[in-house]
């Protein structure tokens, strides 16, 4: 929240759209503004009343560079919009940079999302440093209801809850990387970096930096699904394959390879397989191991075919994986390979399997990967 918890004193807040962007139809702008305000009225007692003349609490306009408030915009990209905290005069006013391209889809920049963020400020919200929050300062396109629990907590501290608000489903807050119970969905190398996926987020672990960088999967790759099951890098081909459900995508660096997504059954998996839990490329053999439920497959990257004699049992071939309570582990969430060791992740643990000694030789916490 802003210092002194600035807020509107009554629950009916007026707004007026004083001009329009040529990038969108007028009714598309009206709809984006309406839906952006509705995001906040859904979770509070606030009601928004539209004025077509005179001065409203929230005066909405599009302008370029210096646009009348001595707080100039900066041309395309960079600074997209700003809004002022609740108060008289300029208070609550919301300005959009006309030098941007305003859209109603995932192309930059989606007017509804930026407006919902700016109206957060106009109602008294400051920035959040949770990358999954709407009030995070950096633009990130995400479909669906944009508020996270962090956003809702903030606005309801100012205005209370919506007495007759329907059940909305906020976005979960960002995972805490050093939570000892943290489990991961997938992990892969990417040109010397490590990408660790969890829910809608991923951490970029760079060998030179101690601090992994947290981001939203869909703000980096809008075409990927919100959550992924497995990923691996084939450095020989300089591609990363991402699995989600029965589909797979190929990344070349950070760009998606055209022609994807494809079905995982193209690899030679039977149709009964509906998702891949973990995947890892073994550089010493040129084979990719694909883990599905209690079994795993071996895919020959060179011939593009599944090896004979698979699937095989995970428990039988990778002995020594035991949970804290001693139960044998027979499924895997994620996998990586480094210097003759296979790292198999299950729940909050990772098992270091030695190919030479043919057994698990160490058990670590999964988030050891994130320098915890």
């Amino acid at each position, binding site marked *: 929240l*802003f*210092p002194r918890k600035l807020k509107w004193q009554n629950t009916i807040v007026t707004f007026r759209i004083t001009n329009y962007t040529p990038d969108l139809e007028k009714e598309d702008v009206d709809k984006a503004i309406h839906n952006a305000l509705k995001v906040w009225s859904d979770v509070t007692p606030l009601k928004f009343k539209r004025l077509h003349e005179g001065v409203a609490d929230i005066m909405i306009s599009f302008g370029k560079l210096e646009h009348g408030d001595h*707080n100039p*915009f900066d041309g395309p*990209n*960079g*600074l*997209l*919009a*700003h*809004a*002022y*905290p609740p108060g008289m005069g300029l208070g609550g006013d919301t300005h959009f*940079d006309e030098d941007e391209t305003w859209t109603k889809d995932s192309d*930059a*920049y989606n007017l509804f999302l*930026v407006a919902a*963020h*700016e109206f957060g*400020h106009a109602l008294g919200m*400051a*920035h959040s*440093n949770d990358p999954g929050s709407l009030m995070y*300062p*950096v*633009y990130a396109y995400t479909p669906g209801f944009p508020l996270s629990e962090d956003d809702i907590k903030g606005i309801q501290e100012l205005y209370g809850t919506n007495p007759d608000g329907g059940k909305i489903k906020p976005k979960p807050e960002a995972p805490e990387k050093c939570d000892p119970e943290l489990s991961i969905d997938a992990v892969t190398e990417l040109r010397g970096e490590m990408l660790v996926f969890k829910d809608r987020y991923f951490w970029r672990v*760079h060998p030179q*930096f*101690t*601090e992994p*960088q*947290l981001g939203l999967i869909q703000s*980096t790759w809008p075409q990927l699904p919100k959550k992924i099951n497995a990923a691996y890098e084939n450095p020989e081909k300089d591609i990363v394959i991402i699995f989600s459900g029965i589909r797979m995508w190929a990344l070349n660096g*950070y760009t998606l390879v055209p022609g994807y997504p494809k079905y995982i059954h193209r690899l030679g998996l039977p149709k009964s397989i509906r998702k891949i839990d973990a995947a890892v490329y073994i550089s010493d053999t040129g084979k990719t191991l694909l883990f599905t439920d209690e079994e795993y497959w071996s895919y020959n990257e060179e011939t593009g075919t599944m090896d004979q004699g698979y699937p095989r049992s995970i428990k039988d071939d990778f002995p020594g994986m035991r949970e804290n309570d001693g139960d044998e582990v027979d499924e895997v969430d994620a996998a990586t390979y480094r210097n003759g060791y296979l790292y198999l992740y299950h729940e909050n643990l990772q098992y270091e399997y030695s190919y030479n000694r043919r057994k698990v030789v160490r058990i670590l916490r999964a988030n050891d990967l994130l320098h915890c």
Partner: protein
Amino acid sequence: FTKPLPADGTERWLLGERYLRQYYGLQPGLMGNLKPSDLMSEKIRTMQSFFKLKVTGKLDDNTLDVMKKARCGVPDVAEYN
């Protein structure tokens, strides 16, 4: 992720200084001879801890990478005057 980072030092500094003035209340004209004044390093550290980056007080690539991303114009910490 974003457009290639500026190669030469001057452009990096100008980008960093503009960003810190806009969002972290850095007073203008504290550049000196392209050496980070203590105050500027302190503002860089504030920004790095807000974005959960490695806190170095320097305009390293990761920090500049975030500074180049499209964002909201409201300051992250200083009260909006």
